[in-house]
């Protein structure tokens, strides 16, 4: 059951990722990225990480992807939503990607990992919250500071264009 579910979700993820790679139209690429992100959220549920799956749905699908769509709409005035790479670039990139994939797969295949499945408590969120507020308290607070800085910086960078003589 788990294996069938994994392969179904993996097919969704890989189809979305391939669609992003080969897609030409930016809005279609965004929809295919949505499929890949949803598949990854399903895989998190399969890995008993329900909170991460929820965060993935809320932040990635609900936040980042909407932000990307907004970016597409705000930059679509130039009318170049379709940009083709040159053939040489595409070939070089494909060769580099396949080489990286080969190296990674050989490395994974030749490594034996300990196959232990630690029985998780029924409530998997409580230890995560405990870790965030005890061991990882400093990075947690630093993340809030980072978000504040990013909010100010993005609002400053994206301010309306001022027409001034150059």
């Amino acid at each position, binding site marked *: 059951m788990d294996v069938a579910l994994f392969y179904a979700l993996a097919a969704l993820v890989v189809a979305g990722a391939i669609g992003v790679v080969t897609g030409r139209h930016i809005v279609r690429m965004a929809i295919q990225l949505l499929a*890949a992100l949803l598949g990854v959220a399903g895989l998190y549920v399969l890995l008993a990480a329900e909170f991460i799956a929820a965060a993935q749905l809320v932040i990635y699908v609900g936040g980042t992807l909407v932000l990307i769509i907004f970016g597409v709409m705000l930059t679509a005035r130039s009318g170049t939503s379709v940009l083709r790479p040159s053939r040489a670039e595409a070939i070089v990139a494909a060769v580099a990607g396949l080489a990286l*994939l080969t190296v990674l797969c050989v490395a994974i295949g030749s490594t034996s990992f300990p196959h232990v499945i630690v029985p998780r408590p029924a409530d998997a969120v409580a230890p995560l919250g405990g870790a965030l507020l005890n061991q990882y308290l400093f990075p947690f607070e630093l993340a809030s500071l980072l978000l504040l800085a990013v909010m100010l910086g*993005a609002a400053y960078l994206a301010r309306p264009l001022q027409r001034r003589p150059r």
Partner: protein
Amino acid sequence: MTLGLHHFLFLGAILFACGIVTVLIKRHAIGILMGVELMLNAANLNLVAFDHYTGTAPHGQTFALFVIVIAAAEAAVALAIFMNFHNNFASIDVDRGSELRG
């Protein structure tokens, strides 16, 4: 056949390769950002998979959560930069931004 760590690592490798090819071939700046998101998701999948199959304390999940937060911050800043780029060059093609070429 049971579901093992290898399944998730292979899927993460495929996802990462797709992300890096996207970053390399896209000329649309937002397309490049999508490739970066794919790579971050691949790393996150590996973190959560290792957390599930090896650890007792949820260190991997904590890292994945931080990665998601920082990815959202990165997307916000990147899109603000792209809007400035679009204002300055009237295009979203990253190949146009070659003014600093020597």
